[in-house]
Each structure stands twice: as structure tokens, then as C-alpha cells.
């Protein structure tokens, strides 16, 4: 499962990043690395880009980059 397919209201943790793309590396510098907890906030009109929240900040990225981030759901968090 990747960042592309998160459900609203659930929290996830990034487990693996395919980091060949320079844009993905930039997103890692912005904090999207393995171990970071993340949730989906909104989807713009037309289904893209996506807005995520991590550690109190909002970041938006496109689906084409979101698919490089593998996530798994965090249990026991509402």
C-alpha cells in the first residue's frame, strides 16, 4: 500500500521509500522518510494533488510521486 491510497481519518507510517527520483529525494528532505507518521487531509478537485499531514505540518504532492512511498496503517489510533 502506498501514499496514493490512504483512507481519510486513519494514520499510517511510511515503511519504505523508492528514492531514485530527485523529487522523491526532495520530499524526503521535507520529512517524508521511513518511520514518519502521516495522514491524508484532502484531495484537490480532479483527484490530484493530495494533501498530507505529518508532525503538525501540511504538505501537498501529486499521485505520481505519492506512489513511491510505501506505508502501513498504524493500529490503535483513532
Amino acid at each position, binding site marked *: 500500500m502506498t501514499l496514493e491510497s490512504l483512507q481519510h481519518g486513519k494514520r499510517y507510517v511510511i515503511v519504505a521509500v523508492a528514492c*531514485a527520483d530527485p523529487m522523491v*529525494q526532495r520530499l524526503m*528532505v521535507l*520529512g517524508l522518510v521511513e518511520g*514518519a507518521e502521516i495522514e491524508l487531509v484532502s484531495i*484537490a478537485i*480532479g483527484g490530484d*494533488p493530495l494533501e498530507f499531514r505529518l508532525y503538525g505540518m501540511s*504538505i501537498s504532492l501529486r499521485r505520481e510521486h505519492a506512489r513511491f512511498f510505501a506505508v502501513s496503517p498504524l493500529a490503535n489510533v483513532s
Partner: protein
Amino acid sequence: MSAKENLTRIAADQIKVRHHPAGTVAVVGNPNSGKSTLFNRFTGLRQKTGNYPGVTVERHSGIARADNAAVELMDLPGMHALSAYSIEERIAVDVVLGRMPGIDRPTGIVAVVDATRLYQGLYLLQQLLELDLPVLVALTMTDAAKAGGLSIDLEALQQHLCGVTVCPVVATTGQGMTALRDALMQLPQQAPAKPPEFWPRLATEVQQLAADLPASMTRTEIERALIDGSGALETHVIGELGDGGHERLQQARQRLFGDIPPLAEEARHRYDWVRKLLPDVQRQAPVLTTWKTRLAAWVNRPVPGTAGLFLVMAVVFQAVFAWATPLMDTIDAGTAMLSALVMENMPAGALASLISDGIIAGVGSVIIFLPQILILFLFIIVLEDSGYLARAAYLMDRAMRSVGLSGQSIIPMISSFACAVPAIMATRVIPNRRDRIATILAAPFMTCSARLPIYALLIAAFVPHTDIGFVNLQGLVLFGLYMLGIVAGLLTTLMLRKTALHGPKPAFALMLPEFRMPNARTVLMQLRGRATVFLRRAGTVIFAVAVCVWALAYYPQSDGVASDLLEERAVAAISLTGNQLEETYARLDNEAAAAQLEQSWLGRAGKFVEPVFTPLGWDWKVSAAVIAGFPAREVVIAVMGTVYAVGDSADDATLSERLRAATRADGSLIFTLPMVFGLLIFYAFCMQCAATLAVIRRETNSLRWPVFAWVYMTSLGYIGALLVYQLGSL
């Protein structure tokens, strides 16, 4: 404070002791961390604004003073990391590393960290601590953190940062500023910060390399050469290492990163450190949703968000027109009064004409648009500072992608409705050069505030003020012109992206700042800065052009015209009396003025180029005004005012009435509807702004793009006007 101390203090104030700055401190932080607000608080109006060498990125510096000390502050562009991604980040990194030509390496760093975004803030801070410079942390937005239920353990934070001083502040209200100022004054004398260990293997590799490098090379420079690869820094390090330098660097990289991109590995290790530290230093209490989070959620929902964006734009444009009118009327009346006063009290002649028709009319016609420009700038600054413009970029990304741009281009595009010059500078946030140039070339098509005067004049004069349903016809035409600019700009980008600027689709990733109430002080300071720039232009370029144009229209004075007039007046005085005589005098004066203008330099120039513009339905007067408008389009109104007002006795007639009455020699009207619409389209497309061309040249660092923009836009304007006039006149 004792009486004696008090006295010394008063004495010191009175003799205004000016302490020499003890050092230069760079203010570094993430974008939107409150960095500039803090900088403004410290330096007030004692700021210097310049440019970094070779680029148009503004360089802000100023002196921060306390009772008995002073420190020079440099406000750097916002950055996320020392691995630069955009031009602005590149500049900030170069300044911090002391690699910017002409700027000495700072002697200290004020790291501005947003308390609500410690995660990213600590990433940059960790890098800054490795700079081998004294570091002071200003923890901003502590009020917002508190309101959000976030408590920060300052002691634990200082401990994790190896003893660096952390000053919590609320930059907007000034809370905590005294402690921060005191710490700042001490900073240049402090010992360099000790970096916290986060990746021992990297430190070891750097140490081994440092052993064979000059002592002036800092740990950060070696790290960046290892991690970022390519570029001046790597070449420099390899050169200093001597023979086999390249191999040594490669081997170190292989040991550290293997086949994984170095930047990704760096990010992983640094964020590991940040994540371990976070639970110790901050605690998040469960809080009820605030109006900000609710507003942010609503604004980002696709349909209401997008509808809201259009509503915001509509309000902005409505405000620009409706709110500015009373002020503009006042300025208009004031200029007319001043002009009349000069004419009445000065002997008729060149000087009176220069002051009244050249200077007052010329400058007045520019200042009159200051209210509109200020209102527009005010809205854009407030939208930007509140965090809304970033949301707009997010919402519009999908739409912008269809013309080959990304959502990041929307901010320059919206700014260019005020002025293309700051808009083109705002494209620096776009990392890719092709995307950036495409945006730069689309920006001048947006209806800037300098086009408004011409639109407003022609629409008010020639479009009837009738209502069609809810909307007014004049407003509709204006809206149409705005849309025309947008469509032309976007089609231009689309065309360029398919041809000269063909390349991979632009990437898009953006931090979306929290909504926050913009700080009135910061907004007003920015507004003041932009108003000053506009007035400086009005006071120099436009003023100079207005006076030149007046001179071109006034000289050479024709003796023939003057003596003919005297003769004809004398003849009329014999046969006519009373009102009839007055009317004849007025008619004769007008005819003489027209004859004088026609044989003036401007008239001759207009006539010379008239054949080029005849297919557009223009006469030599319009052609002359258009020629004069090429350096700066806002001059056109001044020129038209001069061309139609010089020597004219009918002082109370407004320009639009004169335009409506303008005829050719055969008595046919010049300003017919097809001609007026052609003229409007000409101004919508034509590149008449030397300042925009200059900034395109500087920002693209080539002559090719400004030349292309000028030729392309001017031809488009000409062809558009030609088509409308010819088809409309059938």
C-alpha cells in the same frame, strides 16, 4: 535602575552613541517561520535593500541595536535544508557557507524555528549547528503552539542541542524579544555551536577528508561536497585534495551510501535523530478543532475550495475598482486644480506649459492609479501572509498542469495582475528552469495595474454604462479583457511547452502553511516597500518620459502658426462682437494648437509611423501616444492627455470627451467602436514595459527570452488589433 545609571543612560541617548556592529549575523529559517517579521522587529526602518550579485533576489540587511551594542543582521530567503533545491535556497546556502562573492561569511546564525513545525525546523537546525558558527535559536509561533495544545520543554531542547540558547518569542506581539535581543548582542562573541552526533560514520569520513584539507574548510562544506555531489563545492574539495581526490571522494561515498542516493540517506539519518528527540521536547495535548483547522479543511475540499478561490478573486477585483474610485476622484480634482492655478498665475509661455501640461499632468496621471495598486498589493500581501496563496497553488495544480505548468506558477500569475515585475521575481520558487521560463513568459499577459488606466479610460469613454441583468456592460468588457490576458498567457505557455520549452512534466510538491492572521505591521511594511518602488518609477521613468513627451509636443514652436493666429484673431475682431467673438477666438485657438502639435517633433514622429498603424484605424495622434508608451505603458494616458490638451483652451473638458470628439480631416470619427476594441486588444497583448523586459533578461540570464517576449507580444497585439478593426469595420 539607580538614579546614576538612569542619568548615564539619558546622557548616552542624548549624544546618540552609535556602536559599531560587532558582527554580521544571518537570520536563517524555514519559509513562513516568521523570519522576516523577526528581522523587521529588530531592524525597524533601518534596513538596506539591495541585490545579491548576478541575481535579482533581494538582499535585506539592517542593524539591530541595544543600549550598548549593535549587530548587523542579514535576512536570508527561506530554506528547508542546506541541500538547495530552488535558486532562493541556493543563495541562502551560499551566503551561510560564505561562498557568495562579495559577502563575507556571517559571524553568527540566528536560527528561526517555528514551534508548531519542530519536525522540519530541527532538520535545518541540526545542519546549521554543524557550520562551526555561534548559533542562537529563536523559537517563533509559541503562541500558536500553545493555542494548539503543544507544549515545548525548553530545557530538554537546549540539552539535545548541546547547550545552544533557545529564546521563545511571539514575533507578532514582541513577546520575548528583549531576551532574544540580549542574546543576539552576545552572539558574535560566543563559541561556535557543538553539533549533536547523528551519524558517526559520516563524521568519521568527514574528519578523514578534513585532515588533508585546509583548516578553513568547514565540516559542512565537506559534507555538502560528499552528499550533494556535482557543483563548485565538490570541484573545490577535489582540487584541494590533490591527486586522487576524486577517487577518495568516490570511495568515501561508496562506503557511506553504497548505491543509495546520498541525499536520501542523509534525510533518513537526520530525521531519525529528529524523531528520537521529538517526544522528549514536545507534548501534544488533545485539543478541540480550532477555527483555523476547520477553515483549512473546508478550503481544501475540492468543490467549496475552488468556488472559494474564484470568490476571493472576484472580491479582490471588485475592491480594486469600487474602493479606489473616491480616492482617485480626489487626486484627479487636485491635479486639475493645481494645473489651473499654475496657468492663471504664471505668464503664458514655455515654462507655464511645462509645469502645467508636462509635469503636473504627467505625474498626476500616474499617482492617480496609486490607490488601485495599493489595494491590489494589499490583497496579495494579505493572501500570501495568511497562507492562502499556497492553498491556491494546491487547488489549481491540476488545472495548471493541463497547460504544462504546475500549481506553483499560480502565485506569480496572480501577482502579475498587480505588476509583472514582482511576479517574474516570484517565479524563483519554481525549481525547474523550463517551467520557470514558461511562467515568466505568461506573466506579462496578465492584466497588470498599468494597463488598467488605459482600459478604464477607453471603456468609460466608449462602452455604454448599461446593465445587462445583474452585470454592467462596462464591467463585462473589463472582465473580458482580463480573461483575454489569461487565455493568451496560458495558450502561450502551452505552445512553448510543446516547442522551445519541451521537457518532462513539471513536478509539484509544496508545504501548505497553516492559516494565520497576517501581522498588520509586516503587511504595512511590505506595502510601504512596494508603494515606494512604484512611486520611484513614477517619479523617475514616467516623469522623465512625460517631460520628454511634453517637449516633443511643444517644440519646435512655429512662428507661422503663431502669426497666422494673431492675424485671424485681428480679422475676427473687426467683424464680430460679444459671444460670437469669444466662440470664434476659441475655435481659432484650437485650430492653432492643432496646427502647432501637428508640426511638432511628436506630431512628425506620429505621422512618420502613421502608415504602419493606418490598417488599425489609428491616426497620427494615437500612433504618437503608442510610440511614447513603449518604454512604460502607463505613460500612454499622460501622452494622450498632453496630445489632446496642449494649448487647448477648453480646460474643463475631460480627456474622454476629447477622444469621443476626435475626428479625421474628413470629419469622420477616429474612435469608432472597432478601432477602440482593436486598441484595447493591442494594449492587452503588447509588451510595453521596459522594466518587465529588464527583469526577464536578468531572471533568464539571456537576451533571447526578452527579445522573444517583445517581438511575440507586440506582433500579437498588432495582429489582434488589425483583425478586430478590419473585421469590425466591414
